[in-house]
């Protein structure tokens, strides 16, 4: 009797204990990833890159995924905008500024195992400067006359004219080192020397990178095992993905008006840094009445930059007085040169022969900052009797055709993304139609020296000329609006060059 009655209960016990062990096991499995330090990152970007090779197409999103993560350069640019050695451990510039001798790192390998040496470096530079090159920054390499490779770790560039910015330019995404065997396929399967390797690209959704276990630089090795770049275009969707925890970080959040919605969030922190994006209202300096400096000055003085920043970008952003940002070496605050002064603006217009003002059209791209800035400017220019018509102009296609190529416009408004591109005012042709020999001389002089303090001085003079001449109305520098998990460390708060450098990023435990 007893035996019989015991049997089922023993079976029951065994079953129960099995069940307990099993569920404990499942619970442990479920807990393990949460308890161990997190090693993955989901990072959001507004724009999906067009291809993954920054040496054959211009969109900044390409560099924002690949630069410093997959690809590296002879040199790199750090968070403060300074040039640092990378695949070249040192370099030497001849006194006449015409010969650059680089000493390269040894035992560096591309992700496919191909060695990086002076031959590979020569290949990458020749590809960028060659006849069939479609490098968007081909002009960077224009002064390179010939390249020598005396041995595997020495690379010598012979220049046709001194190029003081060359070292800085070599740090750009467009100047990264690509492998002779893999370069042709970098557009879809990028192969570099960086701390992360390309894994997958689900077009329209995400790009995945994984840690490069064989990375050459032990100090710069990736701390994360896996990074997923997710592309979310709609600002509301960006905010939702952050709040629901689908994303850990959005380094360049697209909607300033939604930034305050993260206030008080227990998990997320917001950061406001500087970018290189200069929002300027360029004028056609060859067209009446903008060919008259007094008119341009009057327009500048009629605009209160802070009101533009408040109206266009929720008060987030830094006012500028020339084509230069606080990130750039030798920056000087030029906002006081032509400060907001309606009376003076009116007087200048009268002096120039427009006592009753005039009417013009501003071609405004569809990016949120442009129409909003244009509307605020429209209201302020009405105060001095100037009537502004706003013409929505699709960017990039129609804008590039109308403004860049045909230069058929009165005024436009656009954020210039390239770092240190003050030299665009010396380019001929360029859409401003601005011609000033004194300014062109400065841009030539800056290339004749590689001394940073000398360069900073020249850039200071250049800023002054632009602030007084106002070939474009200088409005503000876009903020870098970062939203990320409070436990995440190592993301750049400022952006001296468009990027998402992830080698130093890790989770706080």
């Amino acid at each position: 009797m007893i035996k019989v009655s015991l049997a089922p209960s023993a079976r029951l016990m065994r079953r129960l204990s099995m069940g307990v062990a099993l569920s404990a096991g499942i619970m442990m499995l479920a807990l393990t990833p949460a308890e161990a330090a997190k090693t993955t990152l989901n990072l959001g970007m507004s724009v999906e890159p067009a291809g993954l090779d920054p040496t054959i197409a211009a969109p900044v999103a390409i560099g924002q995924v690949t630069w410093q993560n997959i690809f590296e350069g002879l040199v790199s640019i750090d968070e403060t905008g300074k040039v640092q050695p990378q695949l070249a451990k040192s370099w030497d510039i001849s006194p006449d500024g015409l010969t650059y001798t680089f000493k390269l790192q040894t035992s560096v390998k591309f992700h496919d195992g191909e060695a990086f040496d002076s031959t590979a470096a020569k290949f990458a530079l020749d590809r960028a400067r060659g006849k069939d090159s479609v490098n968007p920054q081909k002009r960077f390499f224009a002064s390179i006359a010939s390249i020598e490779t005396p041995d595997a770790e020495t690379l010598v560039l012979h220049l046709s004219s001194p190029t003081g910015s060359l070292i800085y330019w070599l740090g750009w995404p467009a100047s990264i080192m690509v492998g002779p065997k893999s370069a042709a396929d970098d557009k879809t399967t990028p192969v570099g020397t960086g701390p992360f390797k390309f894994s997958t690209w689900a077009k329209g959704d995400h790009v995945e990178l994984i840690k490069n276990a064989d990375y050459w630089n032990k100090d710069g090795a990736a701390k994360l095992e896996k990074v997923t770049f997710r592309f979310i275009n709609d600002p509301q969707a960006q905010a939702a993905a952050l709040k629901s925890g689908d994303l850990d970080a959005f380094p360049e959040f697209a909607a300033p008006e939604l930034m305050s919605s993260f206030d008080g969030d227990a998990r997320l922190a917001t950061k406001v840094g500087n970018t290189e994006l200069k929002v300027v209202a360029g004028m056609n300096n060859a067209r009446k009445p903008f060919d008259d400096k007094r008119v341009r000055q009057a327009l500048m003085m009629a605009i209160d930059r802070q009101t533009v920043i408040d109206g266009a970008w929720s008060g987030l952003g830094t006012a500028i007085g020339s084509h230069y940002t606080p990130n750039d070496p030798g920056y000087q605050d030029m906002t006081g040169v032509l400060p907001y002064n309606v009376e003076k603006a009116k007087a200048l217009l009268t002096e120039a022969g427009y006592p009753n003002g005039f009417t013009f059209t501003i071609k405004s791209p569809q990016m949120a900052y442009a129409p909003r800035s244009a509307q605020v400017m429209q209201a302020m220019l009405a105060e001095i009797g100037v009537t502004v018509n706003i013409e929505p102009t699709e960017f990039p296609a129609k804008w590039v055709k109308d403004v860049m190529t045909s230069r058929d416009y009165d005024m436009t408004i656009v954020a210039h993304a390239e770092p240190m591109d003050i030299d665009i005012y010396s380019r001929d042709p360029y859409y401003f139609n601005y011609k000033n020999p004194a300014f062109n001389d400065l841009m030539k002089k800056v290339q004749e020296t590689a001394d940073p303090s000398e360069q900073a001085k020249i850039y200071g003079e250049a800023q002054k000329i632009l602030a007084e001449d106002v070939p474009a109305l200088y409005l503000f520098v876009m903020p870098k609006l970062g939203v990320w998990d409070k436990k995440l460390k190592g993301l750049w708060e400022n952006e001296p060059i468009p990027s998402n450098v992830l080698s130093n990023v890790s989770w706080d435990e």
Partner: protein
Amino acid sequence: MIALLSRRLAGLAITLLVVSLVIFAVMDLLPGDPASIMLGTSASPETLAALRHELGLDQPLLIRYGQWLAGVFSGNLGQSYTYGVPVAGLIVERLAVTLPLAMIAIVLSVVIALPLGVLAAARRGGIVDAIATVFSQISIAVPAFWVALLLIILFSTTLGLMPAGGFPGWDAGLLPALQALLMPAVALALPQAGVLTRVARSAVLDTMHEDFARTAVAKGLSRSTVLWRHVVPNALVPILTILGLQFTFLVAGAVLVENVFNLPGLGRLALQALSQRDIIVMQDVVLFFAGLVIVMNFIVDLSYLAIDPRMRKAA
């Protein structure tokens, strides 16, 4: 019957050819050049020329049209300028999101609308009819992208039950993929369901007044037998017509909802290609949409023949 089918098929081919010509011409008229967009604002004219040559954009218009058409016939839709991969692969990848999304939305909308519409007609003026009227009016009036936002706020950011957007891919497993598609499908289905409820209701009402329905009632058949056996099957023609239209609308018109949910669907591909002037992708996607509309119409016509013997006779 066969004559009719071959006539329809020939018409279909000619329509597609004409459509392809129109697409090509319209794309060529669009301002903006893909090469200059890819190279940005710093490129020199010679770099631009090099890229235009590489992409074949320096060829005359007619030659490019001929090359494209020949490619389409041989199954080679060309290479995307911006992605650098074959367009056919891109379209297939995107269809793997858009087609299931459209199908779930259609099924949802049928499941909601058909019983509601039929019952509303059967009990005209009753409580179900009132509910159906209110439901269809609200769901037609409310835009899908707004429903999408409300769903995200409720189920993702507030309750944390659903992903706020994105698509993990089918290789991530059936459940996560379906989960990612559920809220967008609901947002898409609601306005469709509103339209379909109305169509179903009026189609059933119309059919109930036909002679055969009256005869069936006179024969003494029960109300529900008359309704489901005689009236509903005969009311299917207008319902199917609307369904066919809705399906093509869902595939081609889901752009806004795909944007809100950040789904890598065909609509987003088209939008992205347009802004980048990835003309070859645009051409292929628009041709695909056009083909889909034409083929769906053809299928709807065929299904008329299947469900309505009178039409078979007429054919």
